[in-house]
């Protein structure tokens, strides 16, 4: 009995978390007529017309392609820069290291809204407006400090004796880093990639400002579709359902590390 009540509470909380997601997923399989005129917990007639529309209409599916491009570009930019920087913070003391680290963290705290105007002007000047590059570069403002923070935590968990032994054995720093060190922190890289993925996948405010039709992500497409008259609920629900699939897949793979990834000494 002592265990029973907490378990019921936990179960109720998980149900509370799942109901809205369930509601969106089932909605995406209902016809628009059924959504607006009848009220069914379980769809009376299943339809995949909304998914068919998304996958056949380039105005919809290209937005998902753009979002994937941001994510990949962002990771490609962030990881090679963050890995050596995190190693430096984890292994060495140097002039201004503490101040530099705090400055990195302040970028994590910056509200994106503050940077909208200068970004807008900057990328217009560089002729990168409405390209995936503009958004990917802007997102590094938040993702690069985050990656350094997480990686530093994982790297500090690896004993320094390993480095020292390798150097005595005649390894150079780059060779040691790639051959020995990276495999040791691969779960940390996984967790970092997971967070990088999430934060570029969900970004809305920056792409809203830096893109027009040429590089619009799905998040913005959904927002602009909502503000138009005559909302197409079914297609939005289908779009929302598609948008949570990558996150759900990634989370399944990192589920063992998720609690540590969130808690990690410093994060």
């Amino acid at each position, binding site marked *: 009995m002592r265990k029973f009540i907490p378990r019921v509470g936990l179960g109720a909380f998980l149900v509370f978390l*799942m109901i809205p997601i369930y509601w969106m997923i089932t909605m995406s399989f209902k016809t628009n007529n059924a959504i607006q005129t009848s009220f069914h917990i379980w769809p009376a007639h299943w339809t995949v017309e909304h998914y068919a529309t998304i996958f056949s209409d380039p105005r919809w599916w290209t937005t998902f392609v753009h979002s994937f491009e941001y994510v990949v570009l962002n990771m490609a930019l962030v990881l090679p820069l963050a890995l050596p920087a995190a190693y430096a913070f984890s292994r060495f003391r140097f002039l201004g290291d503490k101040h530099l680290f705090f400055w990195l963290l302040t970028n994590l705290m910056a509200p994106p809204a503050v940077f909208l105007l*200068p970004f807008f002007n900057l990328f217009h000047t560089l002729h990168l407006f409405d390209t995936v590059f503009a958004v990917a570069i802007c997102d590094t403002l938040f993702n690069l400090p985050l990656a350094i923070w997480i990686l530093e935590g994982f790297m500090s968990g690896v004993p320094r004796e390993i480095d020292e032994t390798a150097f005595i054995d005649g390894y150079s720093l780059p060779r040691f880093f790639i051959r020995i060190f990276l495999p040791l922190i691969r779960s940390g890289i996984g967790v970092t990639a997971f967070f990088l993925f999430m934060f570029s996948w969900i970004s809305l405010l920056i792409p809203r400002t830096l893109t027009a039709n040429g590089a619009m992500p799905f998040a913005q497409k959904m927002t602009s579709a909502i503000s138009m008259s005559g909302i197409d609920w079914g297609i939005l629900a289908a779009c929302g359902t598609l948008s949570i699939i990558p996150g759900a897949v990634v989370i399944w793979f990192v589920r063992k590390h998720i609690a540590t990834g969130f808690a990690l000494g410093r994060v």
Partner: protein
Amino acid sequence: MDSRPYTNMAWLLVLPAALLLVFNALVPFIAVINYSFQHIYSPQAHLFVGWQNFEEVMHDPEVIHSLFRQVIFTAITLGIEMPLGVAVALTMPRGGRWSGIILVFLALPLMVPWNVVGFIWEVMGRGDIGLLGKFINDVLHINFNYATNGPSAWFTLIIMDVWHWTALVALLAYAGLCAIPGAFYQAARIDAASRWAVFRFIELPKLKGVLTIALLLRFIYSFKIYAAPFTVTGGGPGDSTTFLSQALSTLAINQLEVGEAGAYGTLYFLIILLISYLFYVVLTRSGVSNEESA
């Protein structure tokens, strides 16, 4: 004592990352500060006006009201999410087959894109097609419409935020609980300590570090909140749910008040920075005391 070697060669490893951040964090921020002291009529015509923009922003009722709303919203949601998250973490089984599955379900709302979070609750809260709105209107017989009624809008946004973020607190607290050695619990059992005493004198002190981090993260993300409320209410009805980020983006992008937006942005960032710095100080202090006691 810190035994890491002192070498300024380490700067070479940090330099590429630092340069990119100078380009896309420092330069834009300097630009924002630069705007904040000017009246900008066009890219060619601008005028230095000193502190005037700051004075205007600090007397602008829209800015003051959105700051006020922001503080209340953050206080309410964090006041619910922190205890609830700890409670959830305490009920979770540690280890075993179920814990992995529960973790995945818990983390799922955190993985939903923020505008989709908004969309989900935009639907849920509607009286015609949403479960929550329909339930409140037709079963509880309370008039509930977030598009026209301020309290309904607030209720929808708060329940949305609790849905979205409680799991973050729970995951952090859970990780903290898992790190408590079993010996502590054995000692408590020998002393026949009550469940409350175990929580108050063993678990809560050990959770202090992770809970400070949870509070810090929640505070930062709450103060930056934009996409989800914007999707549900668009800041309305009227401007009753317009928070800081939305007020700023309206000022900067829609009204093109570049100078005022610069002053607003500078102040906005400084507020977050100041409060985060206080957290950081508290956090590093508690870290030191943990090491001493360990």
